[in-house]
């Protein structure tokens, strides 16, 4: 019945609209440090069986295939693409980037993230009034490794590839150790939940966080004076946008065609 065609087309419009929302968010975040692009994954819906394979016709022949009508499409989920963004050099000592796997761990309210932690690839940090390393945003999320830079040592703040943080103290020949930045990996980063502010939080699907030293085993090294730019590729997103819009138009044509059929049928009896 033409109702099926209407529903298939409507499911297409709805799925494509979701895809458009995801693309719009990617494009809006083309300049957001540490942002990871997402995509909407589509999959076909169930099929209605009109005739089973193996049906016999009048001559006793078995039909080799069945007769199925699909019911359209849905968004099966959105998937975050964790490929590395381009490192941008700023020479600001508190700008950090992870080259390879890993997330910075920041403190949040328990209501936001499991255990009061959230994870980010955005390494644009700054120092707050207490000298603590915090994210540059209105929330001032504190780095969970509790790095506190002593007064006056701001300019000599150094982070090495393994996350060791040192400062020069006047009157001492050796740099002073003030802590270590550890990073976190997940077995399934695509299972992390996005909560805004460039933060991800742990879920059952992501697996528990695995804490480690940057630059060892699978953990990516830390770069100082560099931040990781958004990994959104505007060309790809715009091409997807065109594709999505055209597919949307085509599905709206199906609705018109199916509607016309229903109208024709409604007017069968004069």
């Amino acid at each position, binding site marked *: 019945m033409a109702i099926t065609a209407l529903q298939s087309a409507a499911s297409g419009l709805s799925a494509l609209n979701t895809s458009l929302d995801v693309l719009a968010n990617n494009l809006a975040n083309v300049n957001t440090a540490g942002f990871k692009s997402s995509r909407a994954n589509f999959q076909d819906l169930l099929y209605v069986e*009109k*005739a089973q394979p193996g049906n016999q016709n009048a001559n006793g022949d078995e*039909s080799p295939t069945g007769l199925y009508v699909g019911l359209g499409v849905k968004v099966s989920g959105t998937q975050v693409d964790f490929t590395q963004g381009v490192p941008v050099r700023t020479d600001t000592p508190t700008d950090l980037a992870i080259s390879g796997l890993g997330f910075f761990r920041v403190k949040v309210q328990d209501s936001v993230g499991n255990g009061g932690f959230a994870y980010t690839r955005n390494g644009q940090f700054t120092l707050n009034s207490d000298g603590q390393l915090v994210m540059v945003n209105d929330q001032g999320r504190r780095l969970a490794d509790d790095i506190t830079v002593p007064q006056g040592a701001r300019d000599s703040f150094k982070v090495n590839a393994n996350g060791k943080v040192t400062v020069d103290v006047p009157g001492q020949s050796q740099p002073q150790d003030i802590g270590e930045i550890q990073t976190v990996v997940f*077995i399934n980063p695509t299972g992390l939940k996005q909560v805004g502010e460039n933060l991800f939080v742990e879920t059952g699907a992501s697996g528990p966080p695995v804490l480690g030293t940057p630059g060892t085993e699978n953990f990516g090294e830390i770069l100082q004076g560099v931040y990781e730019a958004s990994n959104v590729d505007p060309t790809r997103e715009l091409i997807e946008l065109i594709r999505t819009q055209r597919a949307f138009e085509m*599905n709206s044509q*199906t609705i018109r065609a199916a509607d016309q059929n229903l109208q024709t049928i409604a007017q069968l009896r004069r």
Partner: protein
Amino acid sequence: MNYGLMVSASGVLTSLYRQDVAANNLANVDTVGFKPDAVATRQRDSARVEDGLLSMPSNRLLERLGGGVLMAPNQTRFTQGAIEKTGNELDLAINGDGFFVVSGGGAGGPDGGRLRLTRDGRMTIDARGRLVLAGEGLPVLDTSDRPITVNPGAALKINGDGTVMQNGAAIAKIQVTDIPDRRALRKVGAGLFAASEGAIAARAPATGTIAPGAIERSGVDPIRAMMDVSNATQDVTANARMVQLHDDLMNRAINTLGRVT
């Protein structure tokens, strides 16, 4: 009753069905790994042939008319979709023949088989470290039908022959298989195909190669699908018009020709 009325009605019904299938193809114009369905219709035999009344006398003119049109089983077109680079190393596309094998999808389904085949190779690692389909989370199987468990965190590389490499060592090989008679495959949604246990057992390694970091676009040709949708509408209109003419004819027969003066 007017014989032609039924013939035209069958035309309306099959055209609507053709449109349903075309609408589903068009809705899936952007679904990764989707294969379009091709609609087939067949001529319906005349009532005498259908009912096996061959020895009975019949109207020779009607005999030639046939009985209208019927829906025939549809077939899935397994033509290769365009392969597009995504850069995500867990996106796999099959270039050539073959399917990935996944387990689950409603164990003990109507066909009793628990394995499903798919061309949608967008994969991810689940919380238990298994390589799974990104959509439904069904485990992807290796060449011995076992799920593939990877070392968490370590960089993963997948070669064109399906070998999964971690830290320079091969840890598993993704199964790419094909079954001899593809008509045995049945779509069950979510990009998955099911087949009878016999057909699954008869599967053999496929000739296709894996393109890592790429997806296979939907096999739907949008122009063709669009034309199928609008053609079906034309056919519905034409057949519905014929129904009205038959009705008109009966009107005349009853109210004009048969009028008692």
